[in-house]
């Protein structure tokens, strides 16, 4: 167990900067998630903590001690790789026991610890097998076993679940979460999957092009994204973005004029271009609302409805309205491989109660509160609204 401090850590490969002035204070026992699009430097950060990559500039401290120059084996940190990196010529027991054997423990002690780790992970029946004779999930657990067996100061995990199918991934997510809570070991976890990020971590670090965008609890990032990139990254389905104009009496948008909410900056006489963001879950079907709360109504023709049982997701095609273009959002859509974010005309996604009568090709009236609207600066991408934390 350890406290890990990254102080303006920078990594350069020749002229390219992979990680720029990364500063983060990871508390003892904390579960930190690193997320970001491909190439944003997540693995590089992890490898620098591990000691597998040299730190170009800045300082890395574990328990207050500078460890920049220490070899991986002297940092007492365990790592789990996306490929699992099991030794194919060793049995499961030998794989799990390898760190102990290297540490010079005697055979009896190794056997006992391996047994214990195997029991914890349900691997006891497979101890004599070779990795090639295991399923993906079992291999993953062997990799976990090898990490926990020597009670290291910290765990580093680089997309450990991305090679598993969806169901197994959910299962292993719970296993990891439970193990980390039981052991209380500081953990840094890299993932692409935002559901993993939201459910696993105490705090999330969002990275882009080697720069930290925002650090915070999952709820903080969801409620108060600091910029367009974070707002678009967190949340599923992602936040809707529409072009808008901020004026003295409200925001003019393709959905109509939205009155100024308490979180919005005061409008100026000269209208100002902004990007408007609304989460799909901020909408309600107007028909289902009991009392007429103040807010904005929008009526449009539903393009597609996806019924998920507990809820319905409806898509509007805003036709003539051009989709918002921003370099901050392009990085996201590239990573997600989604076309609709890069579509020609703007789209609106709304998340409705299952009781909604929304149907494809039929008009639908939806409601949203001006308080749930986010505004972003189109150039810098910075958030212009100031949301108060809920509850």
């Amino acid at each position, binding site marked *: 167990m350890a406290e890990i401090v990254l102080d303006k850590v920078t990594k350069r490969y020749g002229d390219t900067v992979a990680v720029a002035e990364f500063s983060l204070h990871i508390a003892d026992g904390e579960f930190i998630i690193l997320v970001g699009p491909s190439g944003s430097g997540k693995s590089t950060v992890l490898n620098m903590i*591990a*000691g*597998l990559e040299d730190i170009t500039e800045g300082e890395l401290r574990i328990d207050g001690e500078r460890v920049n120059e220490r*070899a*991986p*084996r002297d940092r007492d*940190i*365990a*790592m789990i*790789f996306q*490929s699992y*990196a099991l*030794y*194919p*010529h060793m*049995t499961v027991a030998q794989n799990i026991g*390898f*760190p102990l054997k*290297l*540490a010079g423990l005697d055979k009896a002690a190794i056997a006992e610890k391996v047994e214990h780790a195997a029991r914890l992970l349900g691997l006891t029946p497979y101890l004599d097998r*070779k990795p*090639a004779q295991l399923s993906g999930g079992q291999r993953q657990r062997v990799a976990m076993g*090898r990490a926990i067996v020597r009670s290291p100061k910290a765990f580093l995990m680089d997309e450990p679940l991305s090679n598993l199918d969806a169901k197994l991934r959910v299962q292993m997510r719970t296993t990891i979460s439970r193990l980390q809570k039981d052991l209380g070991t500081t953990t840094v976890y890299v993932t692409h999957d935002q559901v993993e990020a939201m459910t696993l971590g105490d705090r999330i670090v969002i990275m882009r092009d080697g720069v930290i965008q925002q650090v915070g609890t999952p709820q903080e990032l969801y409620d108060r994204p600091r910029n367009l990139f974070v707002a678009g990254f967190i949340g599923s389905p992602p936040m809707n973005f529409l072009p808008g104009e901020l004026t003295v009496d409200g925001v003019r948008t393709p959905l109509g004029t939205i009155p100024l909410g308490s979180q919005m900056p005061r409008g100026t006489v000269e209208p100002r271009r902004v990007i408007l963001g609304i989460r799909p879950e901020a909408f309600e079907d107007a028909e289902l609302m009991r009392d007429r709360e103040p807010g904005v109504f929008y009526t449009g023709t539903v393009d597609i409805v996806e019924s998920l049982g507990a809820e319905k997701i409806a898509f509007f095609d805003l036709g003539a309205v051009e989709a918002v273009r921003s370099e901050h959002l392009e990085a996201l859509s590239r990573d997600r491989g989604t076309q609709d974010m890069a579509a020609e005309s703007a789209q609106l996604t709304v998340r409705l109660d299952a009781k909604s009568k929304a149907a494809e090709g039929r008009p639908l009236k939806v409601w949203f509160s001006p308080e749930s609207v986010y505004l972003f600066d189109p150039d810098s991408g910075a958030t212009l609204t100031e949301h108060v934390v809920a509850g």
Partner: protein
Amino acid sequence: MSTRAPARHARRRISEEKTAQRRLALWLCAPAALIMLLVTGWPILYAVLLSLQRYDLRFPDERAWVGLSNYAAVLTDPFWWNAFWVTVVITVISVAIELVLGMLLALAMYRTLIGRGVIRTLVLIPYGIVTVVAAYGWRYAWTPGTGWLAGALPPGSAPLTEKIPGVAIIILAEVWKTTPFMALLLMAGLALVPDDLLKAASMDGATAWQRFWQVTLPLMRPAILVALLFRTLDAFRIFDNIYVLTGGAADTGSVSLLAYRNLIGGLNLGIGSTMSVLIFLTVAAISVLFIRAFGISAPGTQGERR
């Protein structure tokens, strides 16, 4: 029952398909196999036939079938056994040195980031030179009076005319020439070791030395065995280096050289063929030994040594 029948049916169809594929494969391989048989099989068979006859071109009239008596003659001949042990010594020592040097070279070539192309080309130069040409180079180098290496020895010594120094120089020439080949094969083996595994080992607390012995080497085992097999077979048939360097003087000849002397020099087809057949049998035995070792050590196989 009813659900099982289609499954069995499907399985049968799959196996039928497999048999058909196998048959096609056999037909496709057949022409090549036939030519191989004609080109290599006939000479082998002919050599075996010759080895069973008394057949000396100097006395062609005395040609007769003598059964295995040629084998008895060769196997009781001290010259044969001397040549045999010299060959074994040359093979074992040169292959062992090549393995170590080749591994070092392979590691150097694999790990260097700068000037990779240049280093790989430089290393391969000895292998690109014709053996006989290189052998002459070594011979002149070790010839007293003219050679640059002989000059470093105490005056009056002529290493190529003595047994142990002669064999040592033969081994040196052999190692110099074929280490690059070994390094190349081993480098292919190094590429078999995933980077993640070495990273995982360093995280698990392994030093560079431990990573090499406990991760890299075991994973490279198949490649090492192939390299060893190739080189052992090659080294056992050594001929040109010895022919040029010592000519087999001072009991430094190999079995191949001895067979050649009997066949071409002595014109004794019977004895020469007997020796050739014995060399062939030894080489075959070495191959079988290695392939057996393979069968046991191929990764993923059951019953692998723990």
